[in-house]
């Protein structure tokens, strides 16, 4: 009997960002309507809604494929993902018109300016967040779906 392990790996991978999507949308709405940050929600939501969950699922399928071969622990495997997601996110945000690069740094949503010096720090925080999310949340869902 085919137990479809790759389909289960995809589902386990997409579970966390799909749940987080509610948090993301709520955060965007609060930022826009409470703090008056001009976030174009209909364009900004594309990346976290359409791309991130699918890439998480595909990355978890890749992890399952790597399992019989030499591979990293799941936390470190997940921590590699920002190196792929960040350039895609930056490119999509630039094309969508809510990220611009200035001489002082990156300006998100025409409001949030992040100096270049802080981008490396923010990226290292992203690595930490992805490490923890993959180690504990995606790892947990992998175990629940019998591929842990």
């Amino acid at each position: 009997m085919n137990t479809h392990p790759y389909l289960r790996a995809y589902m386990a991978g997409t579970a966390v960002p799909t749940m987080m999507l509610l948090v993301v949308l709520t955060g965007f709405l609060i930022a826009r309507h409470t703090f008056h940050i001009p976030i174009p929600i209909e364009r900004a939501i594309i990346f976290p809604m359409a791309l991130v969950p699918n890439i998480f699922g595909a990355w978890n399928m890749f992890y399952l494929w790597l399992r019989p071969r030499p591979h990293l622990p799941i936390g470190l495997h997940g921590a590699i993902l920002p190196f792929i997601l960040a350039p895609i996110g930056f490119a999509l945000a630039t094309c969508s018109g809510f990220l611009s690069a200035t001489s002082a740094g990156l300006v998100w949503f025409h409001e949030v300016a992040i100096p270049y010096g802080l981008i490396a720090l923010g990226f290292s925080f992203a690595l930490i967040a992805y490490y923890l999310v993959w180690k504990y949340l995606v790892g947990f869902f992998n175990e629940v779906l019998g591929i842990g």
Partner: protein
Amino acid sequence: MTEQKKADQEMTEPEMSKPEMNEPEQKKFADLLKQSLPPTNWELDRDLWPKMLQRLDHDARPRKWFAVLFSPAALAAVPWFDWALLAVLIVGVCLSPRSIPVWLYHF
């Protein structure tokens, strides 16, 4: 007397090599089998149904995944290093709250 009985019960070589047993031999074989097997008590000495109900009840109430994920045992298994990383993350977000939409965008 006992040896005679034993000799009667044992099957001889020609008897064993015969392709088929006749009716007296089958009866003799059945008697020997009955004697060699201990008597079986077909009545149960206890009622198994309450134990079965208890087992069904236990299986029907699995713990919620959320409770498993955040159970004290699961939290106790988290190494201190990961707690430190989580603390760094929280402090970083608190120091720069305006970056929260950017964080949200990248998740």
